[in-house]
């Protein structure tokens, strides 16, 4: 276990270095941050001077070395727009994104698992066919179209859910700004988390269904039926537990998709989280913030994948970390 964690840590370091290099190479292509900050009448001469002061005219290699030296000390630069350390800005926006992702995951679990199981038990029933039909649509329709439809019906037509923002928030534990403690905050969470959940749900419904169908054919399930166990116990305890392994793997890989979708969802709903911040930073060419975001997200990937591997061992003790090639 300890060796596993050490190895993971070294892997994480390599991943972070690669991410930092890539994020730096991308920067040169994003545009000129100075142009975003000055008015139209500022001369080329003055703009060049500002670029000099910021060190943007140095070679990319020099800039990278400078960045890397600071990054080692935990300093990822100061955001041009927020005028604060980029890491502080991102960490301040982190709770909003985590709460949104958490709500979406909860929605996925409470909706996708029953749906997948039902679709697997009676694959020919009308209910199962309807579920499959909607999951196909969900897979093929892009998330922003779903989100726009949700906003149109829930906010514009019926006016039951707010269309943008986080609403009222409260600070708990002196650093975590939460929307869970107020009714207004929960109302604001409804549409964004639903559309984020809808983006990933079809995949899980289909996955649970196919895994479940396979497991239901296996010998030990037949034996359980023969023993006369109750159907609920067979479906939801014996069968479901053994379908979870591949699902957890996919869930770990899907964290990346989840992060990518938070960028879209947050932009559509003006959700003040990290994804929205990143989108904004790109349009403003706020390069320190862009690099910092990529580093933080990279770190989150490594952490979630490590957690997934650990959970793996818990769900199925036959999987040992050392035999896992880790």
């Amino acid at each position, binding site marked *: 276990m300890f060796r596993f964690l050490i190895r993971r840590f070294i892997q994480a370091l390599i991943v972070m270095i690669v991410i930092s290099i890539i994020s730096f190479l991308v920067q040169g292509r994003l*545009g000129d941050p100075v142009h975003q900050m*000055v*008015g139209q009448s500022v*001369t080329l001469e003055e703009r060049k001077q500002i670029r000099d002061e910021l060190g943007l005219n140095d070679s990319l290699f020099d800039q990278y070395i400078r960045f890397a030296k600071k990054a080692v000390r935990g300093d990822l630069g100061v955001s041009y*727009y927020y005028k604060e350390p980029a890491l502080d800005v991102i960490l301040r926006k982190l709770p909003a994104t985590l709460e949104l992702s958490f709500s979406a995951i909860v929605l996925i679990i409470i909706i996708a698992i029953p749906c997948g199981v039902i679709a697997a038990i009676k694959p020919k029933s009308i209910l199962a066919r309807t579920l499959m039909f909607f999951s196909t649509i969900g897979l093929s329709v892009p998330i922003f179209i779903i989100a726009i439809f949700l*906003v149109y019906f829930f906010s514009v037509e019926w006016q039951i859910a707010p269309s943008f923002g986080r609403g009222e928030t409260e600070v708990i534990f002196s650093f975590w700004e939460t929307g869970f403690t107020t009714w207004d905050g929960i109302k604001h969470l409804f549409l964004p988390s639903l559309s984020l959940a809808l983006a990933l749900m079809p995949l899980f419904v289909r996955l649970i269904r196919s895994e479940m169908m396979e497991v239901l054919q296996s010998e030990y399930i037949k034996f359980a039926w023969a023993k006369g166990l109750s159907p609920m116990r067979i479906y939801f305890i014996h069968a479901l537990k053994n379908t979870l392994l591949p699902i957890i793997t996919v869930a770990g890989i899907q964290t990346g998709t989840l992060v990518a979708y938070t960028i879209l969802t947050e932009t*559509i709903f003006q959700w003040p989280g990290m994804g929205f911040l990143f989108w*904004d930073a790109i349009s403003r060419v706020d390069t320190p913030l862009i690099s910092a975001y990529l580093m933080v997200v990279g770190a989150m990937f490594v952490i979630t994948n490590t957690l997934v591997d650990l959970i793996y061992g818990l769900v199925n003790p036959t999987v040992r970390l050392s035999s896992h090639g880790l």
Partner: protein
Amino acid sequence: MGIEPDSDGFFCIRRNALLIYYYFGTVLMQKPSFDLEGIIMKNIAFLLITFNLWITSLGVQAASLSMAFDADPVSLDPHEQLSEATLQLSHLVFDPLLRRNQSGIFEPRLASHWEQINPLTLRVYLREGVRFHSGNMLSADDIIFTILRLKRSPDFRAMFNAIAGVKKIDALTVDISMHQQTPLILNILTYVFPMDSAFYKGRDAIVKFGETFASKNMSGTGPYILTQREPGVELIFKRFHKYWDHESKGNVDTIKFTPIRSDSTRLAALLSGDVDFIHPISPIDIPRIKRSPDIKFVSMPSTRILLLHMNQARRIEFRDQRVREAINLAINQSLIVEKILKGFGKAAGQLSVEQFSGHVKEIKPKYNLEKAKQLMKNAGYGEGFRISMMAPNNRYVNDEKISQAVVAMLAKINISVELKTLPKAQYFQEFDNRSADLMMIGWQSDTNDSNNLFEFLIACTDQNTGLGAYNASSYCNAKIDDRIRAANIEMNAERRTQLLQEIEIILEEESAIVPLLWQSLSWGAKQNFKIENIVNERNFPYLGDLVVE
């Protein structure tokens, strides 16, 4: 959102209760003997009660406003960036010396009046009794401080270079001296938003990329105090109760400003009732907003001109006037406005919009495909040629679609165009490098005058003076440069107008550029918000005067 009872109203009720108590108290406790003091007090108390009840019933109900625009200010420092968002903020928290009303006439604000005492000096008299949010009183020192600071600001100094110095005459009078006669001095003074010199003194550095005192703190004289700010998320303003303008009918007490980038989200926020006032509205959404009975739509032509530069340094073909004219004739501006902007714009045949003095009524956008083809043939390019074109795709309203339409229209005269559209962050870098043969640019004159357009877009490029900084056509005409210089110091309005109009006529004759259109500004609001009275062509809504019914 909506109307809430004024906090003062509540206070009045409590005060009335106290007075009533006092009134009955004095009546009951009156001694039988003659008590002059008691009677006087009793009557005063009675009068006060009546007066108070009357005031309470008359008092306008204060309202709150929740608004969503597409951008929020980069900094709280009014001199850090010359941008629309910064100036919108300045009009809320600061007050200009003077401003333009909806019909374009100068309106005194912090300057009560002004006079030209000699050709190079303007005397400005300040309003009395104006208070900053910090409690300090406005004085001549603040004006001097502000103008000197503007002259230091990289973004503003181009405009304020015209001012040589400011001298204090007395506590409320200053003399502004100029290097040369400056016909546009009043236009420039609309950018002077006096800052509280005692508040900022010693910590007034202007830094573009970094935190300064002024980028995080504000003290102005304006109708609103910023109470909360989360960049990119929201700004909250409260009305300044010691605001000098008592004649203003504005009754908005709190403003919640949310920047919403996405057009559809912003519109949904208004339609769902989450916000009261939005800008801008995408042309394709206008029919939708007009269908809603609870929402009003306000539109106004802006002064921003959209044009194409034909680079004569890159392409020998563009040096032939016939080719330039053919391109102008092949592009149908009216069709672009009608089909792409759904009528929310104005087809342009010149740079100056109607209200600018350089505007020439006779110059209209021309479209004649046959003549264009003929001209191409005469020039020896009947077979056409290939060119490159670049345009931004998120800077101007429907900029990408407009550039695609241009490509299709030029194909009709056998010019095949290779179009590349880029986000604004990358586009303007390419524009500075003059990377394509045909480049799109939009320009809004900071001084609300034609000459600013000519100086930046048409004048021969000069690195030292900064003239022609955005002239991507390499077009250079001494006759135009002479007139630009002359118009800069011409005090006679009629002669100045003539100079500016002559420039437009030369541009049209030589087909130097391709003017496309003037965009329209559009706002949407709930019916009870009287935004139609406070919006203007520069998009600086005077929210201090906003009335909510």
